[in-house]
């Protein structure tokens, strides 16, 4: 790689396997090169996150306490505080790939506070992604299936022997592990029987297996017959070839560029993943795969709103405390990606999904909001020299190069407008909106 292409690949690596790097961080990474930089990010999957752990967690009322008759608390306030805490954690983290993985697992197992209703349960699920996410996908899936927020979200906690509810069983296969087309309606019904009796104990706030509500009979599922319980179903589905393709395709799509389960890169990576279902090993293979730094990958993704917000605050050296309470939560909602509130179990989409006229307008609102708190000294010092100011904002945002079109628009803004307007214009440029 030439120097400039290494710089470009490093900036790409940090944006995809984290929330972007400042020019100083990229300079430091250049000294150790791409492979070592990738390994450092990967090592963070199992290292302590000192800065992230040091953040004060907001006061969250545990489920058991929240359900004491007569006890009252402001759960919405807790939700806003929790969302803000998570944004801050993504900004300050020492282990950005793990924090990125937490976000992606929220997208893999989309669960909404709007139905769950307890901020503390959303936090517990979030922490589960952080601790178990880098390990075995089977263990993670089992833990998520027994996680209180998920038990409420997909109604598993209300399953009884007679007329079992199919919600969790179906989405487990369709959204979480295999993808549609790899199971029959009979598989949905049989696995729903296996999850009967899985419930949430509101007095302890924990998972509880109610054997009296469980259907212990024989079930035929994906061609295998046995007295399957929920954990057996999860063991069977996570070990299928379809699941290995699904998990690989999802992670590759979020980190490199969108692919289907039939893409050659999935065929390349899925067999390795299927051996141990280990997510750290899969992420290692992805970041070191030649196609991860291909032209297709470099131009392959639009920033998701959360990536956009967190990345921008990191580059500008800002924290959530600069904003009035709830502002950032509102701005993300207007862009269609509110943390802890996916629209449904399908989660959010990619690329074209984020491109619309009203989203462009919300993007501008976010840019104005953020730019007012940015330190613009370096741009202001170059007043009277629009070209140098446009270069300065390029460096500030760690952009590789401006297109002619963007350069002209920025130059005119620098010439006639304020430093703040210049920053806003750069923040909504096509170059910056790509991840």
């Amino acid at each position, binding site marked *: 790689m030439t120097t400039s292409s290494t710089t470009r690949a490093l900036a790409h690596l940090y944006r995809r396997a984290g929330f972007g790097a400042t020019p100083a961080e990229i300079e430091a990474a250049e000294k150790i090169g791409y492979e070592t930089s990738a390994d450092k990010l990967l090592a963070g999957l199992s290292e302590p996150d000192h800065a992230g752990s040091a953040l004060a967690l907001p006061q969250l009322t545990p489920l058991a306490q929240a359900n004491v008759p007569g006890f009252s608390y402001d759960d919405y306030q807790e939700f806003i505080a929790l969302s803000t805490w998570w944004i801050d954690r993504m900004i300050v983290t020492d282990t950005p790939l793990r924090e990125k993985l937490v976000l992606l697992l929220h997208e893999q197992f989309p669960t909404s506070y709007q139905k769950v209703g307890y901020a503390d349960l959303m936090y517990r699920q979030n922490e589960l992604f952080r601790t178990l996410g880098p390990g075995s996908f089977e263990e993670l899936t089992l833990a998520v299936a027994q996680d209180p927020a998920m038990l409420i979200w997909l109604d598993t906690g209300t399953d009884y022997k007679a007329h*079992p509810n199919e919600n969790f069983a*179906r989405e487990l296969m369709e959204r979480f592990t295999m993808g549609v087309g790899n199971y029959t309606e009979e598989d949905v019904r049989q696995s729903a029987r296996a999850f009967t009796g899985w419930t949430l104990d509101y007095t302890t706030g924990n998972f509880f297996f109610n054997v009296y509500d469980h259907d212990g009979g024989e079930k035929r599922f994906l061609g295998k017959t046995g007295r399957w319980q929920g954990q057996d179903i999860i063991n069977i589905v996570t070990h299928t070839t379809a699941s290995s393709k699904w998990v690989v395709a999802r992670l590759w799509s979020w980190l490199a560029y969108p692919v289907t389960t039939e893409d050659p890169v999935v065929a390349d990576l899925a067999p390795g993943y299927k051996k141990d279902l280990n997510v750290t090993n899969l992420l290692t293979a992805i970041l070191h795969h030649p196609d991860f730094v291909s032209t297709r990958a470099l131009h392959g993704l639009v920033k998701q709103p959360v990536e956009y917000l967190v990345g921008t605050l990191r580059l500008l050296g800002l924290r959530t405390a600069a904003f009035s309470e709830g502002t950032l939560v509102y701005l993300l909602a207007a862009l269609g990606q509110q943390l802890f509130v996916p629209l449904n179990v399908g989660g959010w989409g990619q690329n074209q999904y984020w491109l619309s006229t009203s989203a462009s307008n919300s993007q501008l609102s976010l840019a104005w909001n953020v730019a007012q708190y940015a330190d613009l000294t370096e741009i202001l010092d170059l007043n009277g020299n629009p070209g140098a100011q446009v270069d300065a904002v390029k460096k500030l945002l760690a952009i590789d190069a401006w297109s002619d079109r963007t350069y002209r628009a920025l130059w005119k803004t620098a010439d006639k407008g304020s430093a703040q307007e210049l920053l806003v214009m750069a923040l909504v440029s*096509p170059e910056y909106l790509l991840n």
Partner: protein
Amino acid sequence: MAKPFTRRDFLSGSLGVGAAGALHATLGPVRPLARCGPGKRTPTATAAATAASSSRNAKVGRTLVLCTLYGGNDGLNTVIPYDSSAYQALRREIAIPHDQALPLGKAGDVALGFHPALVGLTSLWDAGQIAVVLGVGYPNPSFSHFQSMEIMQSADPTGENASGWLGRWLDASGSDPTRALSVGTNVPLVFSGTRQKASTLADSTTPGDQMPGGDPNFLRAYSELEHVYSHEPALEADIAQVGCNLLAVGAKAASALHSQKPPAPVSQNDAGDVGTQLDVVAELIKAGLPTKAYGVMSSSFDTHMDQLDTQANLLSQLDAAVQNFMGDFPSGSGGLSPIILIYSEFGRRPESNASGGTDHGSASNVIVVGPSVKGGFYGELPSLTKLDDTNNFRHTTDFRRVYATVLADIMGVDPKSFLNAPYAPLGFLD
């Protein structure tokens, strides 16, 4: 347990923080700009007029308002065979009692009634302004929310067509970005073609929420920033194109909202998010935008448990929203004739589950509302006793016949070219 908190809480500023409207107020006056970059061929007023009239047979004054219910609305508890013993047996404790359904008359020999929350729709039915299409579905139903919604929106049961049925109409009818407007952040598949897609609006009737603020120099530079040039990478070009469209669409929407008022509430019930969305649409239609199709939505219809309360609340909001909206378009008023078409990705399982809810089902009803609608039942009610091998309804009306009716009688185009084969229109429009 479900929180009464929605996106509307943010937009109405109940968070008590600076919302977009407040921000715009600090940015000074808003100047509309329609051109993006130097020398680019951009839509002009003349081009827009040409595009709107390009379908020479388009029915003057008719506008489609597509209302998508996400999550799978339970059609059987929306249009209810309340006297049927089979119905009461399948639905047990979540059956709507026969004296609570709002009677609509008989389809064949079965008495049907609206859900008790649909009081406004019932009065519109009595005024002959509602068509209920029964048993709408497609072969080999998918029980996946996402796959079934893709099928419903692409009008392709094979799932191979990656474009929406109205997206294909957009591809074939010019380039004016106001031809189809969907309220919300994302463009649904139904409005996505292979080359073009609908523009989107903020779900707010505040004019300043629809377009960017900033001084004229800033907006001029922004329009240059959104100039699409040849040979640029696809995603960059797409980003620039929506930014460019924002300037054109936002200006028109803001000016329409500035000149019009939302419909006066007719219903006493809360109309929810979908009410706000329909308020925006009503104002834009009254302002005379050339838009031929609007999109609104309501979600959370996935009632696997405790269905009775959840569905009643959602249907009550929808009912109030539609009733308020239609209050602004009495029969023949000023030649404006919007048609609301309400559908979901699927209906729900005829037999309820043990959680007081219903699982994913198949065929369901489609409800069409408007002054130019010929009221009544269309199609045939699926049998409650002869279910398919997944214990779901067998569809009786191919869903593409509904779209064929819309394409022929609202868009004024030949449906065949957008549906890949001829489907007989149902005749629910004049």
